[in-house]
Structure formats: structure tokens, C-alpha cells
């Protein structure tokens, strides 16, 4: 049985599954139940400075998009940071940590970009016995209008400055949570690193309007006839999150910066993918907001089984293993040639591959009078669209053509030599010595 024990920047937890800073971690009641359910750690919902707490709207805070059977694929929210008094949160954090010493409790923080504000809150947080702090530079709604959250995360200089204050006034590990609402995720990550951050966590939510009420002509979620952009999360954002994680992991300057992966983690597999792209652990929110705390059992069992099957005995063994294979387009092997193959035994003859290929791609699928669908190798460019639209998993696959075989589309023999765009004759700026994949 694989050992799922996690040690992320010195913070230990029995497994790499943490709950992200969000409604599920807003209070003692929830966090105790999360720990009882098996979660390895929590990032306590963001605390603000002492004084009258923020207020939330009293109408809908969430909007969603759905897949088939109303499966929630994406969720957005306009909730602010905790709306409970700072003192109450601190007392609860201290109590829970005392009762669950083996679990990780990280405290998410968001106070104004003033040294005094940070200098004030850091010691009281540290006094709770929490294991670390996470700087919320990500929330894109509400607090950003007040110069906090993503308003900080969008300015690398601010990130560096605040991170430095936190390292100066607090001995706890500092995780900087990044907003995806920027053009190049590497810049804020580099700034966090310069400020002395122990890790970054990403992604926070994405600016979004999930839908429009066509009667009220207002974005959703709608408050008294008006709406505002919210932060988008859930399975739909996972591809964006994975790319941003990979960008940081393969950036020379930030390659050694630990990452806590966030963004649509719903199953053990999602978690394994984030970890393979360089994350030391993962944080989950939307999945528990959809299904409840219990899903962690599937995550633990699934990751454990997969690790056993692969022969990994600890999570560290595969952290970042996929990173070397993330490259630039220009280094992809243009001599690698595949063709779609439809397994006729698995095919249920829905014809979606045909409609997709015939109407929108390369007219490379043939349909017989009795609904047998087959690939025309002389037209197939191996785009994979048929694989993606087929409702039967594994029915259509991509078969690699072995060296020496003629590609019927181009009429040329397949070579086993690596050849990329940089050395391609059509490239106006081709180099004579083609470098290998970075």
C-alpha cells in the first residue's frame, strides 16, 4: 500500500489532499467534519483585518454551467472573504489545530497592501498554532475593487513586497496564491519567489459570467436585476490550471518553487495529473461543494491503487515527472505520424465521428450504407476530433505508423528520425542544427 503522507514545504499531512480556502473551510464545524472525513489539510477561508467583518450579498452567490444530466462542470462565485469576526476565526483555528495535530491547517490572509496591516495580523495568526499562511492574491471579485485579492496578484511588484513583509514578520511557511487573470503566470510566480515565498498555489478563480438571464437581461448570479463577474472554478477550469502549473514548473527561474495545485481537482486522477506536472499537493473546493466531504475517500483509495500499480511508494516519487515532456510547439516531432482506427466491435454506430470529420474536419471518415464507419488513411491528418466526440471510451484510437510505412495521405515513407519545425524546410527562419526537445 502506497504511502500518501505528504510533506509540503515542511508542512506534514497524512495525504496530499487539502481543502482550498473557500466556504467549506469557513468555520470550525466544517473543518472538523472535513478532518473526520479524511482530508489531509485545509486552507482556512481567508481572514481579513480586525474590525467590522465584510458583508456578503443576500442573494445568490453562485452561478454554474452544466454537462449532461445536470452534472456541474463549472461554478462561479461572488462571495467575499470570511464574514465572521477575526477573533472568532482565530480561536476556532487554535482549537481545531490542537485537536488535529496531524492535519495541516493553513490560514489564508487578505489585508490591505500596507506593511502595518500585515505586521498586525501575522503574529495573531501564528499564535493559533497554524502550520502556514497562504496569501490570497487571487480573488477576482469584490475585494479586488478595494485593492486586494487579484488586484495585488496582477502586480508582481506588490506580490514581492507583501511576500517579503510576511517572511519578515512571521516564521510560518508562506504560500502565495496566484490569480489566473493575468497574461503570463510566470511573472507573479517569479515575484513571489523573489519575495521569499516558500511556495505558490494556483489557480485562484477566473473572471467569469456563467450565464445571462434572458428575461431580466442580467448576468447570473443576479442580485436585484444586476450581476457582476464572479470567480470561475470546477472541472471546466482544470485545463487552464494545468497549463499554468506547467508554465511555472518548466520555467527555469521558478522550476524549484514548490506548487500547491488548484483548479477543478475532482478525482484521484486529477490530483495525480497536477502532481505529475510539478505540484507537491493539491487543493480541492468545487468537488466538495458539489458532492460533499466524502469524495476524499475515493481520492485516497484511487491515488493509492494507482501508485501501487505503478510501483510508486511515495507521492514525491512522481512529482513533476511529466514536466520534462511539456515543450513548445516548435519542438514537437513532425515526423511522428498516426492514423485514427475505429474498433468495429466497440462502435455503436452513432455516426458522430462521421458528422464531425465530414462537416468540420478533413473528410477522412467513410460511412457505408449499413452504417459501418471507417477511416480513410489517405485523408486522415490524425487530428483526434473523432476520438474526442466518440461516446465510447477507447473505441477510436490513434495508431502510430511504423518507420518505413507509406503515409497514404502524403505518399511519403514514415521516418523514425526526429524532425521539428525549427529545421523544417517551410520554416523561413529554420536553423541548420535542430535542437532536441528543450
Amino acid at each position, binding site marked *: 500500500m502506497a504511502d500518501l503522507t505528504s510533506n509540503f514545504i515542511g508542512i506534514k499531512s497524512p495525504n496530499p489532499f487539502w481543502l482550498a480556502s473557500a466556504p467549506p473551510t469557513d468555520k470550525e464545524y466544517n473543518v472538523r467534519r472535513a478532518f473526520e472525513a479524511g482530508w489531509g489539510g485545509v486552507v482556512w477561508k481567508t481572514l481579513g483585518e480586525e474590525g467590522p467583518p465584510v458583508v456578503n450579498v443576500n442573494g445568490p452567490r453562485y452561478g454554474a454551467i452544466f454537462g*449532461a*444530466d445536470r452534472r456541474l462542470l463549472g461554478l462561479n462565485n461572488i462571495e467575499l472573504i470570511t464574514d465572521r469576526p477575526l477573533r472568532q476565526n482565530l480561536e476556532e483555528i487554535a482549537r481545531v489545530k490542537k485537536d488535529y495535530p496531524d492535519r495541516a491547517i493553513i490560514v489564508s490572509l487578505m489585508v490591505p497592501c500596507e506593511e502595518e496591516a500585515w505586521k498586525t495580523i501575522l503574529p495573531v495568526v501564528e499564535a493559533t498554532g497554524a502550520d502556514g499562511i497562504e496569501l490570497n492574491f487571487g480573488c477576482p471579485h469584490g475585494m479586488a475593487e478595494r485593492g486586494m485579492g487579484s488586484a495585488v496578484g496582477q502586480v508582481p511588484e506588490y506580490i514581492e513586497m507583501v511576500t517579503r513583509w510576511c517572511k519578515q514578520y512571521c516564521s510560518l511557511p508562506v504560500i502565495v496564491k496566484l490569480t489566473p487573470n493575468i497574461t503570463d503566470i510566470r511573472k507573479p510566480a517569479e515575484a513571489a519567489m523573489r519575495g521569499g515565498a516558500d511556495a505558490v498555489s494556483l489557480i485562484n478563480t477566473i473572471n467569469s459570467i456563467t450565464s445571462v438571464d434572458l428575461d431580466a437581461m442580467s448576468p447570473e448570479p443576479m442580485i436585484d436585476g444586476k450581476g457582476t463577474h464572479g470567480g470561475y472554478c470546477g472541472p471546466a477550469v482544470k485545463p487552464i490550471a494545468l497549463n499554468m502549473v506547467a508554465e511555472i514548473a518548466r520555467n527555469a527561474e521558478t522550476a524549484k518553487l514548490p506548487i500547491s495545485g488548484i483548479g477543478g481537482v475532482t478525482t484521484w486522477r486529477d490530483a495525480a495529473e497536477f502532481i505529475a506536472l510539478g505540484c507537491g499537493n493539491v487543493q480541492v473546493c468545487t468537488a466538495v461543494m458539489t458532492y460533499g466531504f466524502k469524495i476524499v475517500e475515493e481520492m485516497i483509495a484511487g491515488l493509492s491503487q494507482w501508485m501501487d500499480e505503478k510501483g510508486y511508494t511515495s507521492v514525491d516519487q512522481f512529482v513533476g515527472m511529466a514536466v520534462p515532456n511539456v515543450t513548445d510547439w516548435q519542438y514537437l516531432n513532425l515526423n511522428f505520424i498516426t492514423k485514427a482506427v475505429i474498433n468495429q466491435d466497440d462502435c*455503436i*454506430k*452513432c455516426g*458522430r465521428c462521421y458528422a464531425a470529420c465530414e462537416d468540420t474536419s478533413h473528410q477522412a471518415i467513410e460511412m457505408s450504407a449499413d452504417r459501418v464507419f471507417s477511416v480513410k488513411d489517405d485523408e486522415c491528418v490524425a487530428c483526434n476530433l473523432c476520438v474526442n466526440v466518440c461516446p465510447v471510451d477507447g473505441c477510436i484510437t490513434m495508431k502510430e505508423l511504423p518507420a518505413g510505412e507509406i503515409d497514404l495521405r502524403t505518399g511519403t515513407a514514415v521516418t523514425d528520425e526526429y524532425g521539428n519545425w525549427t529545421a523544417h524546410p517551410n520554416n523561413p527562419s529554420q536553423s541548420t542544427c535542430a535542437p532536441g526537445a528543450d
Partner: protein
Amino acid sequence: MPNSQMTPGVAPGRLPTETYSNNFADLHAPLDAHEAAVAADRCYFCYDAPCQTACPTEIDIPMFIRQISTGMVESAAATIFAQNILGGMCARVCPTETLCEEVCVREVAEGKPVEIGRLQRFATDKLMASGVHPFTRAAATGKKVAVVGAGPAGLACAHRLAMQGHDVVVMDGRAKAGGLNEYGIAAYKSVDDFAHREVDWLLQIGGITIEYGKRLGDGMSLVDLSAGYDAVFLAIGMGGVNALSADGDDLGGVVDAVDFISDLRQAGDMSKLAVGRNVVVIGGGMTAVDAAVQSKLLGADTVTMVYRRGKARMAASVYEQELATSKGVRIIYNAQPVAMHGEGAVNEAEFEYTSEADGALKGTGETVRIAADQVFLAIGQTLEGAPDGVAVERGKIMVDDAGRTSMKGVWAGGDCASGGDDLTVTAVAEGRDAAIDIHATLMA
């Protein structure tokens, strides 16, 4: 002492009164909005969808299901009605298990098709309940068409002709329109007077007059109709039934299943309908199943369906056979009627077991007697009263692909015409297509 299932002979009120409404309630409850959304989500929107190809009226099934899933239920209904104006009844009575749902790719993949029939009912019910009729008539053509028979074929033909601007007169021998929708078909497939409501809704198109109590040969001839109208569509159905021709077939209690079903459909109070303690139904088609199941639902103690050939040859689908057995009907295969026994009224039906080799049916010599207070004959219907002047072949009015008979200006469709499966949906397709050809002919 009230009657019970054990009361000898033929008697009404064998069940507690409240049981009847349960027994004759909708066979399949309508989908609610949530169920419909879940069911619609399962459709893959197949290319050149097999379900659509399998539908005799070629309803664009993937499109109407997509319209349901995007919240446009009325549009979904319009998609259905554009191809099949009796889409409401077909949603209830179509043997979907041998048509659209049989070829659904999810049936192939999972053995569980998209519930096309129930989704169709969901959509058509919603539009019909709103009272909206989604079609309007084209400018009047000044042409008049006579339609003989107000069953599915006649109504579909009349509606399409009316849409195209023709004036239509529909003649029917019975007191109500609908044909087998009204007088045939098990009651639990058409509850709440649906057949009648559907006709009223269909007639909202305008331009259709129905004349009741009129049938060919009864003061009305095809020659007169041809002379008085620009075109004639014959949809007279199969008015006769095959005779048993076995000893004792004239005994009391030996009756045609279609009459039993018709009486049952028109009955206001099921508890007043008499049914035998022991019922035997002879035949293997839908009529036989409908008679057998409904006998059981009326309170018969034993109901036995006897079919002369094997299970695989039975016209009633496996689904219908299972419906019958689930209601407590016993099905005996490979037995043919020999004689009905009794004094004045039947009390036993005698059968000889059969075997089939190379398509030829042979009696084995071994016989069996089954207690029977009532014997329902469901051994096939026949064309009755086909007018002179149209060619009849193998018991059906001969028509070409466009529904034209051998007589100029006369079309035919539905059960009375050659081709097709004698299903409601086939009749609708034939009526519609004949109307399209009549229109093209009249406007040429």
C-alpha cells in the same frame, strides 16, 4: 354477495371498484420535466440517426430530443407533428421496442435505449395541453377531397390536405372519429379520452368536415364520390374478422376480440363489463395481447393466450408478450384450435399441439382442453366492403408507392391498403404521403 374472480361463468364486477381505475391507468406514466431532461440528455444526436430511419413517419428524433433538452418543448412537438400529426397517439401505442428504440445506438451499446416514445409523449402532451395547433392552412385551392374513414390514415391525410389549402370531407361509419385509436387499442394506452381529444386538436387546422354514420355501399358509392370530389382517399381499415371454423364456434361466449376491445374502450364504467372467470384468447398479434391483458385487468381468474406457432413467429413483440405474462396471462405456443365445447355457452376450448417444419404447420395429434367461459378470437382482420372499381390483391386494396389505387383519382392507405405493417404509425405515414401526392396531382 358481490362477484369475485371465482364467480363462475361470465360476470361483471369481479374486482373491488377502486381496483379498476388502477388497472386501467396509463401503462407508462408520463415523464415529468425532470425525468424528460434526464432522458433527453442520453441522446447522442446521431448522424443520419437510425431511430429516424426506423420511424415509418421519419420524425427527426435527434432534433426533437435536442429541442427538449434546450428547453424548447413546444418546438420539439412541432418537429414531431410536422412529420406525424398523430404523434401524440403514436407516442403511446407505437411498438417503439421494434422501431426507433430497437435501433437506438444506446440499445446497441447498453441494452437501454433513449426513451424516445416517452419523450415524444412529453413534448406532444405539452403542446396539445396548451391548446396550440402549430400549423396554418395555405391559401384555399378550391379543390375538394373526400376521405373515407376517420382512422389514423384518413385523419393524417385530411390534415395534410387541409394544410395545403384543400377542403376535406371525412366520412366515417361510426359515431366517433379516430378509428382504431378510438375503438381498438388497449384502454391503458389511451387514457383520459385521448383519442377523442387528439381528433379535436387535429381539426383545429380548419377546412375539415367530418360526416358520421356514412360508409361506402350504404347509400354512398365510390363512383359518386369520384364524381363529386377532385380526389378520393380510401382509409376504410379492416372491417371484417377471420372466422374460426372449428366445431362449436357458434357457442355463446365465443366472440371477436375486436368487439370486446371496442366495447371496453367505449365503456364508462369498467366494473359493469362482464368477463369470464376463465378466458381463452386465440391469436398471436397485438389484438390478442390487448384482449388478454384487459380480460385479466377486468378480473378474470385465468387468461390463456393460445397461438398456433412458436414464440418467434408471434406478431406481438417480445415486449408485448412480456407485458401480458407480467399481468398474469399464460401464453401457450404451438397449439391450434380444434373445437369449442359446452352446452349453449362455451366452457372448454380444445387445442391440438403443433410443430412447424420448413414453414409448414402440422398437428401432433396430442390435444389439450382449457377451461373457458369466454373465448376471444383474434385471428386476423379482413378487408370488408372494398368498393368496386379498385383492384384488390391478397385481401388489400392495391396501391403504388404514392398510395394510388388502380382507379384514377382514388388513393388508399392504412390497414386496408397493400404494404406497411398495419401499425398506427404506418397508417399515418401512408395518409400523409397520399395527401402529398394528391396535392401534387391536383395542382399539376
